[in-house]
């Protein structure tokens, strides 16, 4: 197991996870209270018990104590330091791994204040696939110009991996790239330092809301391209359209499975003009399968 990730797990789980040796294939580790410890690879899910890898039903049952202790390890015993991330439902670990959190949501004035009685953690292993964007780069970079692109995909189809590789490749070619990494997924910053390769000419605004980060980047960083993940709020659309008007190319992603449904969203109506093309991904031939490259006019 990657040592940095192992350090973030409760000691009671470390001894099971230490048995697994196929870390390059694992996509997720799922912990749910009183349910089997689950490992997810691309096409299968399995469990682990004392004897080794096993069927899910024979897997070690995760206890509430395992989850509490794992949370303590992941937050370095400092819940308060990550309270904003916890409120948003996820953490980023050293190494760029992402952890989704479920539990009892505590509301204050209708807004989420925190999550207590944590009952589940979904650890998504950060995977850098250098060259993931090879197939789409000819569409994105044409005649030395970056074409503003929207990457559309359902969750788990490699949208962030693709964005990261686009970012790395553009940066490697000397373009001044700014990543607005609101959810710390693209560069996977841990204490400010990117944990994944985003290229030599890339600035990362980590944890920054897109609508605020995009104007900041345009004013302060003189970017040639702004890259951002999971646009969806109407303000994101306005900010992206502003960037396009300012002559900055944008590469963004959003959840969806086809352009026809995505274009109905308010944020696209606000800022859809920012994009010149859309790339649709699926998992048909594994994560990152390019289904379509659409010209938008």
């Amino acid at each position: 197991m990657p040592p940095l990730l192992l350090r973030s797990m409760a000691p009671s789980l470390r001894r099971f996870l230490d048995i697994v040796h196929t870390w390059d294939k694992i996509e997720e580790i799922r912990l749910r209270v009183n349910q089997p410890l689950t490992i997810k690879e691309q096409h299968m899910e399995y469990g682990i018990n004392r004897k080794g890898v096993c069927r899910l039903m024979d897997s070690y049952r995760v206890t509430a104590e395992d989850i509490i202790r794992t949370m303590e390890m992941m937050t370095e015993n400092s819940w308060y330091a990550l309270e904003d991330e916890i409120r948003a439902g996820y953490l980023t670990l050293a190494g760029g791994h992402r952890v989704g959190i479920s539990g009892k949501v505590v509301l204050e004035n209708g807004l989420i204040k925190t999550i207590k009685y944590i009952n589940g953690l979904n650890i998504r292993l950060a995977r850098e696939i250098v060259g993931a964007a090879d197939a789409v780069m000819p569409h994105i970079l044409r005649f030395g110009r970056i074409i503003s692109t929207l990457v559309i995909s359902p969750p788990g189809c490699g949208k962030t991996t693709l964005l990261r590789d686009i970012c790395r490749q553009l940066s490697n070619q000397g373009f001044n790239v700014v990543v607005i990494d609101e959810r710390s997924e693209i560069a996977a910053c841990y204490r400010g330092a990117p944990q994944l390769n985003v290229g030599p000419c890339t600035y990362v605004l980590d944890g920054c809301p897109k609508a605020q980060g995009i104007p900041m980047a345009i004013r302060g960083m003189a970017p040639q391209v702004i890259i951002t993940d999971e646009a969806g709020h109407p303000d994101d659309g306005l900010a992206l359209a502003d960037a396009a008007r300012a002559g900055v190319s944008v590469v963004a992603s959003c959840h969806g499975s086809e352009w026809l449904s995505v274009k109905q969203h308010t944020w696209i109506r606000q800022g859809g003009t920012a994009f010149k093309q859309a790339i649709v991904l699926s998992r048909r031939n594994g994560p990152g399968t390019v289904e379509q490259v659409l010209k938008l006019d």
Partner: protein
Amino acid sequence: MLRLIGAAIVITACGVGGLTMARSYSIRPQNLQSLATAVQMLATEIHYTRSSLPEACSRIAAQIGNPVAAFFNQFAAQLTSNSGISAAEAFNQSLPVLADAGFSQQDVELVSQIGAVLGRSDAEDQLKHLELLKTRLQQSIAKAEQERDKMVRLWNYLGFCVGALVVLMLI
């Protein structure tokens, strides 16, 4: 001659005992004050920089004198030991540093209460707990100062007097 030497030894021993007692009374408010300062620093670290506990504690240890620095160093070292220890366990395992440095049982118990909650909630809640601890420490400091004013002078002389009394009784 031997008697004289014996008497001197008895008086010196009792006197030193008395001085040590006096010193423990005079050092307690200083130690508590230093601890209260550290608690205030921790509150500031949590409030403004949201530093993680190990980071904040090492920084505090570097800025404050012993024995409180030794305690925070030990706590930070336990937290970063990668052994999967929780903050409460690390805190409890570091408390003997305070006890060995002359903090009274009562003081150590006061501090130990924060160990159970440290790092386990959001900043607002942490600050409330630290504020409460600070208030209690201030009360302890006030009491310790009163005791110091009363007891230091008493013990400074009492040791020697008891020594002299013992000598008189033995002669």
